[in-house]
């Protein structure tokens, strides 16, 4: 069951939440809508669910599996919606929460009470919470609540599953566990799903495809690998994780960032044009001597080795702070300590000209 949103715009008073957004989620796909708060991702999700209406426009439409559902109300669209703050019915037990969607059906469509019971039992089994059926939501942990909310959404056998920051209110450990569980669940039941999140790690880990949003527009969409390794704009580059930023300019076809001079294969631009260099912390290496790779002098200011990676903070000659990340094994070889003078070399980087076109630059040669 595919989801398609066409030319969706939405304005709240003076705030333009969505600007002519079109989006397609293929059958069985799990897509993450990723963006900072205010980027319009939740509004888009609510419009797809029918809880919110798009601004009227003859070309705008919501389609499920090619069928136009724009005019149908939320309850008729058969979407499973999972809320950030669970929105469980506080006056009902876990069992009754899950059964709700079946019990409110018109009499002729309503399953028998025993069929409902069986369905709820199945779902409780799926979320591993069978023994909690008689509890009330206030007696559950956050992670348990969100699983109940998911089961409740799945009970109506929705055509699509929409999740609004489902793990946003949970602590880090529970969040990690739950999103892996969600991914496994999706691999099991293959329901077309759209997940809204502001956590890039979550989007990259869970989704088949990531749609990055900014200011009510889609900034970039692609597989997690594409979006992470080939961002098409500074915004995406920056949003996808920690990054070192250097300011420079173009001079006779080369990009110059202080002591770093890099080949620039992008569009021809006049000399003096502003350029920015983005380097991920793991795309930097440290060496004692200059080793032929593009690099610059720096001084180690801080080493933090508690964690999966060693994080090293350095200060360049011009006083800029740089962050380097490397595995423990390489850190032991490099054997650097605070106050050491070292060379920081570039393993990979990305140059953005001021109008935001990008060129990959994998360890470009010093000129």
């Amino acid at each position, binding site marked *: 069951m595919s989801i398609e949103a066409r030319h969706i715009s939405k304005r709240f008073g003076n705030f333009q939440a969505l600007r002519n957004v079109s989006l397609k989620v293929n059958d069985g796909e799990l897509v993450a809508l990723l963006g900072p708060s205010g980027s319009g991702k939740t509004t888009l999700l609510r419009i797809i669910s029918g809880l919110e209406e798009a601004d009227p426009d003859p070309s705008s439409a919501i389609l499920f599996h090619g069928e136009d559902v724009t005019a149908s109300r939320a*309850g008729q669209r058969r979407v499973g919606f999972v809320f950030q703050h669970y929105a469980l*019915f*506080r*006056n009902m037990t876990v069992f009754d929460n899950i059964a709700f969607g079946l019990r*409110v*059906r018109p009499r002729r469509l309503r399953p028998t009470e025993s069929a409902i019971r069986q369905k709820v039992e199945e779902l409780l089994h799926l979320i591993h919470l069978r023994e909690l059926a008689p509890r009330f939501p206030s007696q559950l942990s956050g992670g348990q609540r969100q699983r109940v909310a998911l089961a409740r959404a799945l009970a109506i056998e929705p055509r699509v599953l929409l999740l609004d920051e489902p793990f946003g209110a949970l602590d880090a450990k529970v969040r990690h566990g739950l999103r892996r569980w969600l991914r496994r669940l999706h691999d099991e039941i293959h329901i077309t799903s759209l997940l809204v999140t502001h956590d890039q790690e979550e989007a990259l880990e869970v989704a088949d495809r990531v749609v990055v949003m900014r200011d009510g527009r889609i900034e970039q969409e692609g597989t997690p690998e594409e979006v992470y390794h080939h961002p098409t704009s500074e915004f995406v580059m920056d949003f996808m994780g920690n990054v070192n930023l250097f300011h420079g300019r173009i001079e006779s076809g080369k990009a110059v960032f202080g002591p770093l001079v890099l080949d620039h294969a992008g569009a021809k631009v006049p000399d003096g044009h502003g350029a920015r260099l983005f380097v991920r912390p793991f795309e930097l290496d440290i060496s004692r001597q200059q080793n032929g790779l593009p690099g610059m002098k720096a001084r180690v200011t801080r080493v933090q080795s508690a964690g999966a990676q060693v994080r090293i903070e350095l200060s360049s000659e011009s006083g800029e702070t740089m962050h380097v990340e490397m595995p423990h094994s390489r850190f032991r070889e490099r054997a650097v300590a605070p106050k050491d003078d070292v060379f920081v070399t570039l393993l990979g980087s990305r140059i953005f000209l001021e109008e935001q076109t990008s060129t990959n630059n994998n360890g470009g040669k010093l000129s």
Partner: protein
Amino acid sequence: MNPNPLARSDPRWLRALLIAVTVLFLGLFLFLPLLTVFLEALRKGVGAYFTSFRDPAARSAIWLTLLTAGIAVPCNLVFGLVASWAVAKFEFKGKNVLITLIDLPFAVSPVISGLIYVLMFGAQGWFGTWLAAHHLHIIFAVPGIVLATIFVTFPFVARELIPLMQEQDTDEEYAAISLGASGWQTFWRVTLPNVKWALLYGVVLCNARAMGEFGAVSVVSGHIRGLTNTMPLHVEILYNEYNFVAAFAVASLLALLALVTLIAKTVLESRIRTEVPALDASALETIR
């Protein structure tokens, strides 16, 4: 151990003094009058006490009070639900004005509230001629008493529900709708159960005021014995006639109503806490 640090740091005599002042004040202004009501009512024995209720005028006053509350409370229950639903779940212009207007009966003297109806529906009022032409009696009749009572008591239910409904936001309703529930099902199965204790609390307070209202009702009633006297008005008449036992006997019914109201209020207050999401663990987690 006492969780209040002040209790440990304040000198013993100060604590004793404060407690004594509180007890004395409550005793003088609350317990003593309450006791007087029952003592005066029973002064000539239990027989005389119950004889007071055999008077047809007393019975008619009790009946009219029950009737008035029986109409005013359901009206305000519906109004309170509708108003608080509108205020809490929708955004619209003039919302603050509406909230302020709901409080109007609290701000206006009950006598003025009664007078408004006299000016509107009285013989010399705006609709007076029209009403007279159609032989409709509102002022100095039961409809006027009911109208005045509804006006005076309409903030109670709405005032209880608005803050609670605002606190609970609309996610549960949205969830119900996305699961296919109709608006009506959402209201009966989700919204109403979530506010039931607060609603009952508002109803209890509304009822107490509806039965005990004097000022507004006094203006519109006309004090026709056996016809337009409610219990508070009947008490006044009996008292002015130096019929103390009968006056206090009827008053004791109102005092009993007050006691029942107090007990119900205390029980309900503890139940409402379960409805306030701020005290719910999920909300705390979210804040963290």
